[in-house]
């Protein structure tokens, strides 16, 4: 490889990532090579042989940009040595963290409150499952690296469960927000309260959120049941899905609770809020709400099925909306009508 090849490869790799303008970096590395050649009296090939590969340089530059941490990225295993797989464990002091971000895919995500006061993140690490981790300015981020070209379906046959799961442990109470996202994997959150807002997203898998508090909660799934129990939101709870049923039990979110899905039912029990909106299609809506029916202003309707709620009722201090098609509506009230 000569200097021009090296720089071309660096440029291509940087441009393929979201590094931003590359000219400055290219001219920097061009200078480095020229100086190395001149000052060490090396020829181009030899100078390049002593450098990191263009791909490795690009990876570190992108990494340092996304994490802004000067910590050099871990060295990749040389090609002729087997990559050491395992579970990486990262710890952080809770007071260092104001926001936790996980952007993953094809991975289960488990979040648990624990009695310790630090935060622990466990993620698998293999030749094909790689992450960028950063902790800077209060933001703790675990970002799954883009798919490599040598993508192999055998990946999903990995039998060790620890290699298919990211675990996040946090103190029971944490002054931070969470923005967690995966796909094709179950998301399961239990026993913690956040001072900030929380957003949990996955697809094609079940979601379980139990005994969780936050300033505001957004839960998004698809093609999998969403099961919520004992949720305390300071403001609102928003749950959206498609083709997945939603069950919400013991919910307290004073401002609003919105539950929306399709082709599946919605079940509520003791959802305490000022504005409750439930919408689905081809599925029933059922459950039990606190107070009396007369506490609510109601709008309800189904195109095909029984409905025990008035289609329209005014006057209550709270608002309830229940809409579906091809399904019945049966919502009762703790203290009767």
């Amino acid at each position, binding site marked *: 490889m000569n200097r021009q090849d090296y720089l071309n490869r660096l440029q291509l790799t940087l441009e393929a990532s979201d590094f931003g303008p590359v000219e400055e970096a290219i001219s920097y590395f061009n200078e*480095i090579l020229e100086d190395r050649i001149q000052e060490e009296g090396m020829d181009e090939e030899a100078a390049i042989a002593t450098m990191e590969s263009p791909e490795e340089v690009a990876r570190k530059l992108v990494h340092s940009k996304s994490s802004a941490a000067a910590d050099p990225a871990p060295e990749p295993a040389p090609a002729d040595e087997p990559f050491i797989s395992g579970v990486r464990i990262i710890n952080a002091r809770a007071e260092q963290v104001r926001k936790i971000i996980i952007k993953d895919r094809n991975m289960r995500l488990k979040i648990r409150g624990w009695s310790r006061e630090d935060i622990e993140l466990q993620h698998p690490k293999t030749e094909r499952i790689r992450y960028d981790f950063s902790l800077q300015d209060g933001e703790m981020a675990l970002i799954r690296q883009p798919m490599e070209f040598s993508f192999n379906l055998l990946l999903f046959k990995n039998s060790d469960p620890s290699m298919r799961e990211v675990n996040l442990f946090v103190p029971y109470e944490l002054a931070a927000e969470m923005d967690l996202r995966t796909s094709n994997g179950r998301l399961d959150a239990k026993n913690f309260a956040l001072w900030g807002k929380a957003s949990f997203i996955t697809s094609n898998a079940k979601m379980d959120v139990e005994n969780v508090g936050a300033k505001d909660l957004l839960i998004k799934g698809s093609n999998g049941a969403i099961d919520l129990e004992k949720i305390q939101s300071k403001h609102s709870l928003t749950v959206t899905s498609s083709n997945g049923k939603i069950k919400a039990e013991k919910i307290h979110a004073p401002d609003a609770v919105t539950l929306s899905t399709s082709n599946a039912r919605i079940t509520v029990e003791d959802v305490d809020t000022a504005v409750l909106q439930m919408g689905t299609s081809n599925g029933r809506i059922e459950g039990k709400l606190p107070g009396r029916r007369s506490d609510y202003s109601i709008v309800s309707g189904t195109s095909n099925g029984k409905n025990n709620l008035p289609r329209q009722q005014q006057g209550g201090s709270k608002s309830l909306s229940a809409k579906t098609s091809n399904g019945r509506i049966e919502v009762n009230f703790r203290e009767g009508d």
Partner: protein
Amino acid sequence: MDIQLKRGLTEICVLALLARGDSYGYRLAKDSEQLLPMSESTLYPVLKRLQEAGAVDSYSTEYAGRLRRYYTLTPEGWAQMQAFITEWEQLGRVYDFVVRVKEQKNQQPTGGTP
């Protein structure tokens, strides 16, 4: 080493190297070798950050028939070096205290407080 600490150390090393005189990418990487080895790909983002923070400035000048980019320390860079020294003097006192307490404890019979 703690990421944040390491980050701070790489930055202060670059500042100190530049305090000896203006320098350029390849030379900085080489000069860092005895102290805290940094590859060019580690050094580049550090220089970028320092420039963004106004601690370092750069200029191009002709050398052997081509342009070479030199980096130079700004007054803000000098101020950061002074701040580093002040901070670490304080850390040094804490370090001394911790070591002293541990030594005293080691001299006492185990488990007992006098």
